């Protein structure tokens, strides 16, 4: 048993660590290249900071109180959106969920990705013309939606790349939250994920059970580390307990993206009266009406994302070496929210120092390893956020408050390095 676990981990860890590492690395690159101290960062109002807009001049007590309130409101939104998702799925509104997920994917790639693209063009003064950039963005968004939801018609590698891209874009937007709010929201999300997945009656647990009882796949954004032939041949088997959980989480993440885009559009609308494009104006006029509901949905998405899933294949149970083959044949599935929140944590650390980035990265990867080990032992859906987020936050503050003064002091006095 021990050797088989190690053998399985050796194969699976690479498949799981690689996309997470790539996602975090690219978010750190984005944060470093686009954040300039001279630019006064406009605080974008999102579902995560509805209650309290953080100001540098506030006292620590005010910041803490406001951040906690923000986190509580955010979690309530997520929980409401998750239960809404459960209800929709329960009453067989799968088509609606599928179309909504596709729309939110397109919106993330086109609107939020476009915003990041424009910032990069402006930062590096790339003389790209309007026609070319719109054409590239349109192709990128449409191919993204097709690759994530078109089933078997596109390469697996492309689907994986686009899933990572979605995570990067959403995480980059999340790094715009104020500092205290970011930390409280991350901790609150980890706790929420723990409750939603493991508690009886938790919304994610309900979704998993519903999906497994129906053998119908819930439309959602999921990163599948290593698809297998058997998984594809037995579509019914995909409706495992784990799959349902990750599905719901992924769709929630997308919702979050949508709400943020809406808030961004609102800001643009208020700051740009000269905009003459009727189409954009129409979208902006609509967004306030739908804003409330979407905020809730977005929150739900974010909260739901953290789940590491294993989808098993029944056939392999007949094998002589049933345990090893069974483990080896299973593909691990990640909800997209895991990518997002790991990257938000590292992105926030990147705004302080590279030392905290290294510490957080190692902590998150260690937490992921612990979750994988637990997964191989428990063999059921597990939340992926709690261990990694707890270790990441702990290591960040330890590095920032204890390790950095020590190293800087010794380096200054030539006692080290």
């Amino acid at each position, binding site marked *: 048993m021990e050797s088989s676990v190690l053998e399985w981990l050796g194969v699976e860890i690479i498949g799981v660590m690689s996309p997470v590492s790539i996602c975090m690395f690219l978010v750190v690159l984005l944060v470093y290249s686009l954040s300039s101290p001279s630019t006064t960062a406009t605080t974008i109002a999102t579902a995560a900071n509805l209650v309290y807009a953080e100001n540098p001049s506030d006292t620590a007590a005010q910041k803490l109180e406001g951040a906690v309130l923000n986190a509580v409101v955010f979690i309530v939104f997520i929980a409401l959106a998750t239960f809404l998702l459960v209800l929709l799925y329960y009453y067989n509104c799968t088509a609606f969920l599928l179309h909504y997920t596709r729309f939110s994917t397109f919106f993330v790639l086109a609107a939020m990705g476009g915003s*990041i693209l*424009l910032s990069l063009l402006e930062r590096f003064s790339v*003389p*790209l013309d309007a026609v070319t950039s719109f054409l590239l963005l349109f192709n990128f968004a449409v*191919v993204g939606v097709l690759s994530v939801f078109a089933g078997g018609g596109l*390469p697996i590698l492309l689907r994986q790349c686009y899933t990572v891209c979605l995570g990067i874009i959403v995480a980059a937007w999340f790094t715009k939250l104020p500092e205290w709010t970011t930390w409280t929201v991350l901790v609150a999300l980890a706790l929420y994920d723990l409750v939603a997945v493991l508690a009886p009656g938790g919304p994610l647990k309900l979704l998993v059970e519903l999906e497994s009882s129906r053998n119908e796949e819930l439309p959602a954004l999921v990163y599948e580390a290593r698809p297998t*032939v058997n998984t594809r041949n037995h579509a019914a088997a995909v409706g495992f307990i784990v799959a349902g959980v990750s599905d719901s989480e992924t769709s929630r993440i997308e919702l979050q993206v949508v709400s943020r885009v809406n808030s961004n559009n609102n800001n643009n609308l208020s700051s740009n009266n000269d905009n003459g494009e009727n189409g954009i104006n129409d979208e902006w006029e609509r967004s306030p009406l739908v804003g409330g509901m979407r905020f809730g949905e977005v929150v739900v998405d974010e909260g739901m994302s953290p789940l590491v899933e294993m989808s098993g294949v029944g056939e392999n149970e007949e094998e002589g070496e049933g345990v090893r083959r069974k483990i080896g044949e299973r593909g691990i599935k990640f909800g997209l929210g895991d990518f997002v929140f790991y990257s938000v944590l590292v992105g926030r650390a990147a705004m302080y120092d590279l030392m905290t980035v290294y510490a957080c990265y190692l902590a998150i990867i260690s937490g992921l390893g612990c979750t994988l080990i637990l997964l191989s032992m428990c063999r059921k859906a597990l939340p992926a956020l709690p261990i990694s987020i707890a270790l990441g936050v702990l290591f960040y503050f330890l590095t920032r408050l204890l390790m950095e003064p020590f190293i800087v002091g010794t380096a200054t006095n030539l006692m080290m390095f």
Partner: protein
Amino acid sequence: MEASQGNHPNPNPNPNRNNSVASSVPVWPTIDGPLGLSEEESVGYARRFYKFGFALLPLLWAVNCFYFWPALRHSHSFPRIRPYVVGSAIGFAVFATLLSSWALTFAIGGERLFGPVWDQLVMYNLADRLGLTGWS
């Protein structure tokens, strides 16, 4: 195809070496090998993506070539898929040439070639006017 599919227990198959028939003829039409589409499904998808590419989506042509690379690479295999993949390759090559020519002309020529219109067309100035840079 399904009969030979059962002969590949390897979870990470290499599509170019899954041949149980000959050493140079690919068995699977897609780069995903047995995880991808069968030949029957591939024809429909290849045709669909080839046609979608004409709707200002040349990236789909590139994806078509990438996905059905075995059919493109081996000239005598999969005769029903190959016309669409070759068409996609030609279409993407033409489009990439045209677009990169225009983009490079715009970037290198600059204001000398296009006059004051260049300042209005360049994306970062346009983004400033439209107020689309709320993220940074």
